């Protein structure tokens, strides 16, 4: 991995750490900065999971509201972005299940990878770092066997349980479980290679 990318990521992480610490102390301008940095990622996730613009708009507000309320309990030894995505994903899946609006099994393979989103050298800052990480995650997903990728994407974005996925795909439950486990393991190994997750 390029040294420049590592440095940019480290800087973004340091900025995030500082911002969330200030948010924990009630600093609204720091909250504003975190919102500007991550709102589009959260909105994109909410749109993909909830598939309704209005619901996704509500999700963005609720997720960042939880960030504001929970900032003081954030474990500062960890990175902010995965914590935020965890809150966002929890909210979206709960909302999806609460509304019992189960989308049909649609596995949109055409959404990734969008390599054109990866910025060139001229792009610096948080935006560029996010785009780079986005590209890396998509590239890693592309390297998974299709059935493993399908299992991960269905579970993460459709809010379906293992059993529901097995039923909808007509596969035995054991097969779906194994695909999820192997898929996530391989994804982790691939992302470790890019230092996106810890070794």
């Amino acid at each position, binding site marked *: 991995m390029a040294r420049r990318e590592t440095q940019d990521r480290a800087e973004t992480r340091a900025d995030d750490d500082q911002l969330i610490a200030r948010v924990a102390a009630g600093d*609204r301008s720091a909250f504003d900065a975190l919102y500007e940095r991550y709102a589009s990622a959260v909105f994109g*996730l909410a749109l993909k999971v909830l598939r309704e613009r209005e619901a996704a708009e509500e999700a963005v507000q609720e997720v960042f509201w939880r960030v504001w309320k929970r900032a003081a309990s954030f474990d500062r030894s960890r990175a902010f972005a*995965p914590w935020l995505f965890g809150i*966002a994903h*929890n909210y979206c899946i709960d909302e999806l299940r609460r509304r019992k609006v189960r989308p049909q099994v649609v596995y949109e393979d055409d959404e990734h990878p969008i390599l054109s989103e990866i910025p060139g050298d001229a792009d610096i800052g948080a935006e560029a770092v996010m785009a780079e990480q986005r590209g890396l995650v998509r590239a890693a997903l592309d390297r998974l066997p299709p059935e493993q990728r399908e299992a991960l994407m269905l*579970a993460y974005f459709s809010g379906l*349980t293992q059993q529901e996925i097995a039923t909808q795909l007509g596969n035995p439950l054991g097969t779906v479980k194994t695909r*999820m*486990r192997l898929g996530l393991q391989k994804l982790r190994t691939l992302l470790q290679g890019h230092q996106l997750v810890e070794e």
Partner: protein
Amino acid sequence: MLRMKETIHIDDEAAAYALHALPDSDVTAVEAHAKHCPPCQQKLNDSVETAQLLALAAVAQQPPGWCKSSLLQRIERESFLTRPARSPQSRTRLASWMPMVAVLALFSLWNMRMQSEVNASRAEAAAAQRSSTTIQATMRQNAMTMAMLAQSQATRPLSAKSPAAQGAEAWMHMTNGQSGGVIIVKNLPAPPPGKVYQIWVAREGVKEPCESFISVEPMQPVAVHAPQALDSYKWIMITLEDSSGSHAQPSDQTILFGDL
């Protein structure tokens, strides 16, 4: 339903847990097991960390600007409501009494004008009697408001919390132990069509709706009747609400706020 014995470690479940693909009952079992099994807890943490990055596989999109403004307004409002109450010292200042004096003068003039209307209407036929009754009722109401103003012991300022109320001010005139008081609202524009201003009194966990009104005068007195003594509440606020519908909870459109 999973049966998680001490000897059976989390294997397939860690991935499904991280992806939110387990039924609730299994989630509880997995968490209970991991709590007492460090290797499984580690496996769970690793799986969650990896799964969370799947969020980046969704295409990023900018949410509309109002999402942020609405969120910031919610934060502003919440921080006001959780702010500790100020020490109970007398906050009656000359500046805050000035509008009250002005309103009293305004009332006097208004009542004098209405008195002459009543006198004139007395000479007229039965049709006018209805109008004179209405005017007299208004005068009685005004007299009660004036009495509440005159006997009030304390004044609490409210300040604008919304761009819609820029330049607007208000003062709550109240008496200890009394549930009735008068708010004098200054420079508050009329609400948009279909909307009214709603007065609320609040303390931790309690928000009570009081009177609603439509401000039309540059200096508008509004009588307030709370369910309990006004000084038993911590805050007073004015929100913008739909003119129809019940107002069990204040909307997010807070216009003016003050400590009681």
